[in-house]
């Protein structure tokens, strides 16, 4: 089973790069949904078909692969935006930063005092790299929807870590994280609607200006 996880994690990293370099919102939401669905296979591949792994996979697939992307696509459809215009940092620089942080994650993971069975695998570096990419997306984009995507990607990175520990991690913790995420996306969806109604745009920097 282990030889399938490496291509899977590689696909996850490539999806990170694509999301950092692309301006099309719908395509970005779709690939992040694909990333979530791919990650749902991860517990099955690394722990076999146990009850715990299957529940973890099913809930990851439902939330990360279906429900949250569907909410985002609906929000995009409703506020009628197609592309991320004028990001704070350009697409090519973000992509370069993304690759640099990914390379850094690979180098850094070798230095970490991990359990010996995790030392050579791609799990820890991929988890770190996905979290960094999510951070980058959160920092560099102006549109609220792309920032939600960054948040989602951040959670995907945490999920990869969680799969490593899933034997030790209680099921309730993972469920709690997902519930948090879902609530976060709901709140942000309401905020998105509110921003677009108030300012007829989705740029979040308008929110920092005070008004009497």
């Amino acid at each position, binding site marked *: 089973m282990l030889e399938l996880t490496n291509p899977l994690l590689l696909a996850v990293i490539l999806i990170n790069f694509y999301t950092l370099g692309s301006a099309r919102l719908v395509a970005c939401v779709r690939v992040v949904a694909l990333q979530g669905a791919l990650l749902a296979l991860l517990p099955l591949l690394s722990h076999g078909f146990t009850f715990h792994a299957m529940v973890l996979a099913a809930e990851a697939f439902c939330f990360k692969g279906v429900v949250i992307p569907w909410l985002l696509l609906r929000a995009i459809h409703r506020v009628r935006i197609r592309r991320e215009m004028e990001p704070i940092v350009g*697409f090519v620089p973000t992509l370069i930063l993304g690759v640099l942080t990914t390379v850094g994650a*690979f180098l850094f993971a070798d230095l970490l005092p991990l359990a010996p069975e995790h030392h050579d695998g791609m799990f820890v570096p991929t988890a770190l790299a996905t979290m960094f990419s999510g951070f980058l997306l959160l920092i560099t984009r102006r549109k609220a929807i792309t920032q939600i995507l960054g948040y989602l990607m951040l959670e995907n990175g945490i999920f990869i870590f969680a799969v490593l520990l899933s034997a030790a991690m209680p099921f309730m913790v993972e469920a709690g994280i997902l519930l948090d995420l879902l609530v976060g996306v709901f709140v942000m969806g309401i905020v998105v609607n509110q921003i677009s109604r108030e300012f007829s745009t989705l740029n979040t920097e308008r929110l920092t200006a005070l008004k009497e």
Partner: protein
Amino acid sequence: MIIRLFLHLALLLLFAPLLQGVITRTKALFAGRVGAPLLQPYYDLARLWRKGFVFSRTTTWVFLAGPLVGLVVPLLASLLIPFGALPAPISFEGDLVLFVYLFALSRFFTVAAALDTGSSFEGMGAAREVTFSCLAEPTLLFALLVLARLSDGLSLGTLLGSHLLPAWHSDAGASLGLILVSLFLVLLVENSRIPFDDPNTHLELTMIHEVMILDHSGPALGMILYGAALKMMVMGALLVRLALPWQTGWWLSDALLFLAGLTGLAVLIGVIESIMARLRLPRVPQVLVGTMLLSIFALVLVLR
């Protein structure tokens, strides 16, 4: 040794224009047309060769040097690279650097010939060509570095040797897949195919390579077209060997496997040209930087 050299050159010289024919035919089939005969590139070359040279009075010897170097360089480069499992006739340590920079040499002379005409239009094409190729070059070098790391050698013969087949099945398979994709994109850029450049267009805004050769005619144009076909086959040889690393042991079946791989590559290019639109000019450097980053990432994966 001599027989191997002749076999290498015969394969290259005879088969190269057919690839262009296969691409045109695939595009025609996708568009629902019958299309030109597969051997049309050969007829075109013969027709161009029968015509006379026409030189503008403003040009100098540089104008003719462009096509000549463009024809000779792929021939030289082909001697360094193995065709499938057939070993390269000339091989020495570090020939991969020569391989990369031979193409830079031919590009320099093509650009110089374009500038020699004194037309601002050709200058524009030259500027675009140089910009895109300087972004494509690091990708090629990083990809070769990945292969060098995997094979512990520095000659193209070792790089593309028999270690490739076990490497695909090991952990390095992911890196090989990444550099296969980036090398394919480099092939599309270097041979000015869609989505980077459209070989059929004659529109000022979109032309890159075509615009540089507008003033060449007759045998000089023939040399450029033949050189472009040879260049595509030489760069294709790198990809085909990487994708089909099998070795049969008998030279004829090795050669047939190689030619089948090249034909498959040509069909793939034709399919891509049929289903994709040309990229906007500002998007091209972005995609090229992306492929460069992919190959750097592949290198990091094999280095750790």
